[in-house]
């Protein structure tokens, strides 16, 4: 038996993405070439851009294809910071939160260490909600120093959704650009870039069922971040290098399908997720649903099992063919406490005792039932092993 409930790490390849990829790979041409071969692959690339733009409510010219979420976040954070800092050297503050992904926080820390930036982290509540009152106060008191604000749309661990419209509304009072890491959001909740008021947004293909290695930075047409790469000037000068039209085609096809069936899937995920949480809580009353009571994604269940090391739980579930996730692992493979839970004020012990179960387009009711019975079965053993 094999049960995959770790869609937030990467989601199974959609058949439409594979077909689009195969078909594009069979087509020869550099999209920048002016001859007929080049024009054919350019068309594939631009069709993909249309599909991705439509999937996230952006204009087609706002979609810049690149390798994925990490690159998009680096380009956005550094590119916006440099542009803003160039225009006004007093703007050194980057506002974000400790609950963000490392792919977002680490570029900011790099700017702090190398470029004199200042990171201000907004407080997160115990349930994962970001304190937007603190954001309002910060904009009020230090608005003229803020280079940019970056807050993720949907938290990849807890599933908590941030009110992006509210963030951009507050930022607009001082004309501050806002970026959002929407990697976990695309295809799982409705997102509309134009309506959001964002200046830039990161998205990634493999979270919606395309292969790994393709993503996009969505950037407003009237904002021009400083580019990380220099070369042929492709993709609005923001991503020099021959465009990967084949992966873009797969991304476009996957994003289109994911959004088309989103509403139906959300309803199904809610049923599954609620069943999963209620049955686990009934069997293990001390378990804590971290984001209970917040506005959160339907496909995400994030649960602390007090006193149970995530590694023991993951091991025992894996032995039963069930793939779920905990905090992030270091390169050597050691699970550390979740930095997201630590930022939410949980103890290091609880932050090392959580499981993230994320559902997706291939999830069935029998997957959920298998998970519930396995969690109930292994919990006492994992608890005993964790006492050692």
């Amino acid at each position, binding site marked *: 038996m094999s049960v995959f409930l770790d869609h937030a790490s990467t989601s199974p390849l959609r058949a439409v993405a594979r077909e689009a990829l195969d078909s594009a790979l069979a087509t020869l041409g550099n999209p920048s070439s002016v001859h007929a071969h080049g024009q054919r692959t350019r068309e594939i690339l631009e069709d993909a851009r249309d599909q991705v733009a439509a999937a996230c409510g952006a204009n087609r010219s706002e979609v810049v294809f690149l390798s994925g979420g990490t690159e998009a976040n680096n380009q956005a954070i550094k590119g916006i910071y440099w542009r803003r800092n160039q225009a006004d050297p007093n703007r050194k503050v980057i506002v974000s939160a400790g609950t963000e992904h490392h792919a977002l926080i680490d570029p900011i820390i790099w700017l702090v260490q190398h470029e004199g930036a200042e990171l201000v982290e907004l407080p997160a509540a115990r349930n994962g909600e970001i304190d937007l009152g603190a954001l309002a106060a910060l904009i009020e008191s230090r608005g003229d120093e803020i280079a940019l604000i970056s807050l993720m749309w949907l938290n990849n661990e807890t599933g908590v959704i941030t009110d992006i419209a509210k963030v951009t509304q507050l930022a607009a009072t001082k004309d501050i650009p806002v970026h959002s890491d929407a990697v976990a959001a695309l295809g799982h909740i409705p997102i509309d870039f134009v309506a959001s008021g964002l200046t830039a947004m990161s998205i990634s293909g493999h979270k919606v069922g395309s292969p790994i290695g393709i993503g996009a930075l969505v950037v407003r047409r009237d904002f021009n971040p400083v580019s990380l790469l220099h070369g042929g000037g492709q993709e609005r000068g923001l991503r020099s290098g021959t465009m990967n039209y084949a992966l873009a085609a797969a991304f476009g096809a996957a994003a289109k399908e994911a959004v088309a069936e989103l509403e139906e899937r959300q309803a199904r995920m809610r049923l599954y997720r609620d069943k999963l949480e209620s049955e686990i809580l009934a069997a293990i009353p001390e378990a804590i649903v971290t984001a209970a009571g917040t506005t959160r994604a339907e496909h995400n269940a994030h649960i602390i099992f007090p006193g149970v090391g995530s*590694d*023991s739980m993951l091991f025992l579930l*894996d*032995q039963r063919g069930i793939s779920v996730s905990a905090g992030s692992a270091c390169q*050597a493979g050691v699970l550390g406490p979740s930095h997201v839970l630590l930022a939410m004020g949980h103890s290091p012990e609880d932050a090392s005792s959580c499981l993230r179960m994320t559902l997706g387009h291939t999830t069935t009711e029998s997957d959920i039932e298998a998970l519930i019975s396995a969690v109930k079965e292994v919990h006492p053993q994992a608890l005993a092993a964790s006492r*050692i």
Partner: protein
Amino acid sequence: MRVLAAMSGGVDSAVAAARAVDAGHEVVGVHLALSRMPGTLRTGSRGCCTIEDSMDAQRAAKKLDIPFYVWDFSERFKQEVVDDFVSEYRAGRTPNPCMRCNERIKFAALLERGLALGFDAVCTGHYASIVKDSQGQLELHRSLDMAKDQSYVLGVLTQDQLRHSMFPLGAAASKELVRKEAQDRGLSVANKPDSYDICFIPEGDTREWLRDFIPTEPGAIVDESGAKLGEHDGHVGFTIGQRKGLRIGRPAADGKPRYVLEIRPKTSEVVVGPEASLEVEEIAGSRFSWCGSKPQGIEDGLECEVQVRAHGESLPATATLKDKELVIRLNAPLFGVAPGQTAVIYEGTRVLGQTTIDRTERKSVASVG
């Protein structure tokens, strides 16, 4: 049996795991993360739980087609092994961290956790053999290849631990053959160099490493009569029997080399003297354990052999258990043995037990550590 194979990323543990698979056991590979910074890359010839070691272990496990995990024991390792290592040196003693790791981590924390998670045994790449006697009791013996024998560092194991241990390399004829076997099995670690250093001291310089933990207090180098011969910049890292690096200007009256005889942490004095003063006739310790069942006749004195370091020779002796102390009287004097070291006693190839040395007795002068 369900077997947990501890895989360091080296060739021995990989071949041991492979043999356990061949024997028909259900094997799961586990790499122990022992460093506090498991993300670091290897710098010297060696480094425990670096990314490379973890990846090497994972590659070997995948070659054997067994599940693989990294388990974090860094907190326990720091408390039980590293902190103990530092405090032993601070007290002027010479600890063996590998034995401590076997005692507290591999065959304690890892084994207990394995048992709790449904495993029956821990398998390692140690060169040693487990033999069942006629009563069904288990005995630990030296490996077939005496040059690689590691029974000394396993001397701390108890009957219960032996019951849940597996050393498939005990019967290996030589390290070369183990490497050949690894090669034949397509294991990429076949030619990985052996590790000799202490895993958490990557540069291999214990004295230098200890400086970060123990403030160095300069003190006097004195002879046995107490006369000052020179100065040192800290007693930490001196070892009984050490000859080099004493930096005493004047030669000894007899012109012969001088050795560290004793370390006095309280006064930060290092006592040096002639080789003859290193002669030890008796060693004793109150912290001892039996590797298997308690040897018969130990209260009345048992003829045996004793080994005091991992790659040392074993010497004939008589071991007696009296007043809750294991006293080992050597047939011929032993040179340069320090409190803190472990004495393992053998009967032929069989490990009888071990004690951490608390005191050593010379012919005339007693040295209490």
